[in-house]
């Protein structure tokens, strides 16, 4: 009899764990990371934040990139190219974003960004200043 109770207990427990897992798995909402991101590169530290955090999916919008050297000095004369895409789906960005403004204090406006579906995106900045050039990759999720 004890064995039966024990078996019910163990299997019942397993069922409860399974049900709880199933609920938690389906209960989580979409991850939203429309806030600032910082990436430490080899030469530069790059930080990006959406100009308007309430931008809509599939709408052109701008990000502000702040570039500094590893010791924290703003990089005021960087040139940048932008690429990216969705690695899991094997496609790039649906637009060709560009730097449209250098604020002169290490901040730059990157305009023409658009994410045409929900999911995990990469935004890559290839930053060149003086002799140093590198690509920093931001992993974003919408």
């Amino acid at each position, binding site marked *: 009899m004890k064995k*039966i109770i024990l*078996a019910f207990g163990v299997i019942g427990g397993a069922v409860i764990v399974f049900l709880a897992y*199933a609920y938690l798995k389906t209960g989580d909402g979409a991850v939203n990371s429309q806030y600032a991101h910082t990436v430490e590169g080899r030469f530069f530290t790059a930080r990006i934040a959406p100009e308007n955090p309430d931008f809509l999916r*599939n709408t052109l919008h701008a990000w502000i990139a702040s570039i500094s050297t590893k010791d924290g000095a703003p990089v005021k004369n960087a040139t940048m190219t932008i690429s990216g895409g969705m690695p899991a789906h094997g496609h790039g*960005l649906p637009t060709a974003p560009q730097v449209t403004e250098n604020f002169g204090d290490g901040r730059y406006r990157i*305009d023409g960004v658009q994410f045409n*579906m929900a999911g995990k995106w990469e935004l890559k900045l290839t930053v060149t200043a003086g002799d140093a050039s590198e690509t920093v990759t931001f992993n974003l999720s919408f």
Partner: protein
Amino acid sequence: MRAVVSGAVVAGILIGVFLFWNAGRLSERELSIARGLSLASLPPVPPDAGNAVADNPQAAAFGKELFHDTGLSANNRISCATCHIEDRQFQDDRALGQGIGTTERRTMPLNGVAHATWFFWDGRKDSLWAQAMAPIENPAEHGFSRSEVAAYIAQNYRAKYTALFGSLPDLTGIPPAGPLGDAIQQTAWERMPKEKRQDINRVFTNAAKSIAAFERTLLPVENRFDRYIDALLNGRKPDGRSALNRQELSGFRVFTGQGRCIECHNGPLLSDGFFHNTGVPERAGVPADRGRVSVIDTIQSDPFGCLGLYSDAATNECAKLKFMLRDKFVLTGAFKSPGLRGVADRPPYMHAGQIDTLEQVIEHYNNAPFTFTGKSEIQPVKLSFKQRAALLAFLKTL
């Protein structure tokens, strides 16, 4: 041992009941995804800075008349409504559009068209009004010339036109002329003074802006899926007209999961509005069609584009032209993702009606065949027979 077996049986039954119960309803996360595909997430019609009369009801009423007027064609028998048939979702059920001649592509439906960013299958026009001009001058469609359009407006719609756009230019003695017409019309167009050509372009443009104002009023139609999501979002039990059965819900999960349909068919119109090469076969008898790549070098200099003389937009309102993707590798063989509202009711499918049935479309994406041009983005999604049947059932709710 017997105890373990009986315990396992009970647990198995409990899990089975749970899974069955769960499959018949959407989780919170699924409901959030579903909401994104329903009319509940449809934004207002976006403004069209290039069209000063875009939201003018008087222009829309004028445009509606023009949309249905067969006088705007070379044979007096073709109007926009010939191919965009109102009670057929504003399309024509044909593989290739049929005007005066036969076009090289499938007629696109118009409900919700004002939400698009790019127009035509290859997105060669950046506004609805610029789109509306092209078929009128296409020899295979209306086969009209733009000087004839201007003359026809002056003769038949003078009061309505001038109320909206001011006086009409003097068009007496103007021959049929246009840059896209036959050799005689092209020569007549070239010989015309520049100012006269601009006058004619202006009238043609204003007529098209009115047609666009009408088309902006064509909204997406509520479907059973919308009613189902609306009921769930408002805490109502979906009734007969809005219920989705287990197979349809299972098809929703295929659509948003393993089938990967949602990658391109997302948002409330079930299109990302972008261009993709999905390895769709060529249509026999139609010239090779490489889609988006063929137009990306000319869009920015289109005289009827956002940056052109006839657009009402300021340069800084033409961001989509400025930041458009021009990657020729990615855009070879790429066509706009069509919206999927009402899709089950309008075969044949793809940009030249190459695929006859929705079952075959699902087969296409299931197998992801070799592409004839460029590089196909799709991979075989390997759906079971049951999953494909469920996906088809779901598509029929849209």
